[in-house]
């Protein structure tokens, strides 16, 4: 644990309060299928409870994806327009290995880890040489290259070209249709584990240097930090997490289509991060949930014109919650209690 005197008692209490609140949210989500079953009177593995679990599963997957994006945008302060490359690579690697090679899930997991790691190092080494909007453009170009590749008819045998891959043979024990409840816990556990790992990393010495680079890269370099190396670490870490989110996405949807590599997929990550709050871990995850549920509710209410309504909601959020839901909440709390100083730890 933290040694006495090194951390304010207040900060410790704040951390404990956060942990307690987080635990209650996780508990609620873990019990959700059964609560839904109680409310609706239907079994937890059928009917509306099953359908709602589906919505949440999708939200958990995007929560991980949005969190990975925020490692770059909110923590390191670099704006990537090519995050879909990692997500889509995870989706396609999983789909192709299951469909054509019939690998086991463990092997696929390691393969996705390795592929996205190498991808992160290679593309990071090239694109991080430029900054700001140039970085955004270079990453966009790389992601578009993968998108075009996924639609290329030359590789139809492997990728299905513009049709994508369908009917991926996912092992029976986690088939999302027949084993919905099991898949629900798999996705929830996945999101929870990634959150805990990311929290450890952003609160590590390296994680703090990454935040310092966001705040003032010149200063960080002048202090002796090789900022390129730290940005590369953040880029690779973020990419690997996005790739793993892509893997679960493929298992859940039982398909892979070029859309997962399109620029829209990157924009979604950006929206979730901004709505939830950049520079926090909980924020993008919440943003993913909000986007997912809002999309469902709005499309049911307004039909195909729902993006129009969503646009208005998004503008309102940006206007009135400029730091996102969690970011604004944190600031409001820091201001409301005059004695409560902002805590050192980031959540």
């Amino acid at each position, binding site marked *: 644990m*933290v*040694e006495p*005197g*090194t*951390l*304010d008692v207040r900060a410790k209490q704040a951390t404990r309060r956060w942990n307690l609140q987080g635990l209650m949210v996780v508990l609620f989500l873990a019990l959700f299928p059964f609560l839904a079953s109680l409310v609706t009177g239907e079994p937890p593995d059928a009917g509306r409870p099953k359908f709602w679990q589906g919505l949440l599963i999708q939200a958990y997957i995007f929560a991980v994806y949005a969190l990975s994006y925020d490692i770059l945008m909110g923590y390191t302060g670099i704006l990537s327009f090519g995050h879909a490359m990692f997500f889509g690579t995870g989706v396609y690697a999983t789909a192709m290995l299951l469909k054509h090679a019939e690998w086991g899930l463990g092997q696929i997991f390691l393969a996705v880890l390795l592929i996205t790691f190498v991808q992160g190092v290679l593309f990071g080494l090239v694109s991080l040489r430029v900054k700001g909007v140039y970085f955004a453009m270079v990453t966009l170009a790389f992601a578009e290259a993968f998108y075009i590749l996924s639609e290329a008819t030359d590789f139809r045998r492997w990728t299905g070209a513009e049709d994508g891959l369908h009917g991926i043979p996912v092992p029976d024990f986690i088939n999302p249709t027949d084993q919905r409840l099991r898949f629900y816990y798999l996705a929830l556990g996945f999101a929870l584990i990634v959150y805990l790992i990311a929290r*450890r*990393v952003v*609160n*590590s*010495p*390296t*994680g*703090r*240097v990454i*935040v*310092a680079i966001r*705040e*003032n890269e*010149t*200063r*960080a*370099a*002048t*202090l*002796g*930090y*090789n*900022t390129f190396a730290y940005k590369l*670490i953040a880029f690779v870490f973020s990419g690997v997490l996005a790739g793993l989110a892509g893997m679960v996405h493929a298992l859940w949807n039982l398909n892979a289509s070029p859309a997962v590599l399109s620029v829209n997929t990157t924009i979604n990550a950006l929206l979730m991060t901004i709505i939830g709050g950049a520079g926090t871990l909980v924020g993008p995850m919440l943003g993913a949930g909000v986007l997912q549920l809002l999309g469902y509710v709005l499309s049911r209410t307004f039909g195909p014109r729902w993006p129009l309504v969503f646009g208005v909601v998004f503008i309102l959020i940006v206007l009135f919650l400029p730091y996102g839901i969690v970011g604004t909440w944190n600031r409001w709390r820091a201001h409301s209690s005059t004695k409560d*100083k*902002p805590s*050192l*730890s980031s959540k």
Partner: protein
Amino acid sequence: MTQEIILETRDLAKHFGGLKAVGGVNLRVRAGSLHAIIGPNGAGKTTLFNLISGHLKPTRGQVFLRGQDVTGLPPHRLAHMGLGRSFQITNIFPNLTVLENVRLAVQARGPDNFKLWHDYRRFSRYISRAREVIEYVSLKGKEHLLASALSHGDKRKLELAILLASDPDILLLDEPTAGMASEDVPELMRIVEHIRQTTGKTILLVEHNMDVVMRVSERITVMHRGRVLAEGTPQEIAANEAVQEAYLGSWGTRTG
């Protein structure tokens, strides 16, 4: 006192297009000395600093640190060789607390920067050292304020604290009192003098305030239009006619 030359530039020059911001400067700084660089606005003082600290690559010439050619090395490499600098325009981490600003500077020189799996709060030696430095620059009690919330004078102190915390052998101070209220200047300069007296660190100082420069420095280099106009002790500089003509005359009237 040791006569070792810790920092030297040879014919160091930087041209921006046709503008010769620094036009061939030879500078020799003795270890443990407080060496000031003065000169009117646009004399090339800050550009010279940027060349020494690796923020700019020279058009011509070389920089030597302890006799080793370090020309063109990036700032983070030079930092690890003991060269630290502060900036004329406050250069801090605005949305981090004062403590975290300084703690990051301490951590920079430690061996734990690439630990991804440990909580940074467990490295208590960095935190306690940061608290010491904060107390040293008299910012105690403000550890948990965001750096952006500090007054200008306190930001200048924080700038100095960040530099001190990174424990350099040579401190390049670029107008540490820039923009400070005049009543705050003596306190900051006391801290600077105290640093040199108690630690024996070398300080290279760019400063506009002539009273301060004349009082604290051992050697002064006067720059004018990118070149060295004169170099010597404060007495020699005060007596130098060329300097008086080009520079001190106008300053005498301003600082009164």
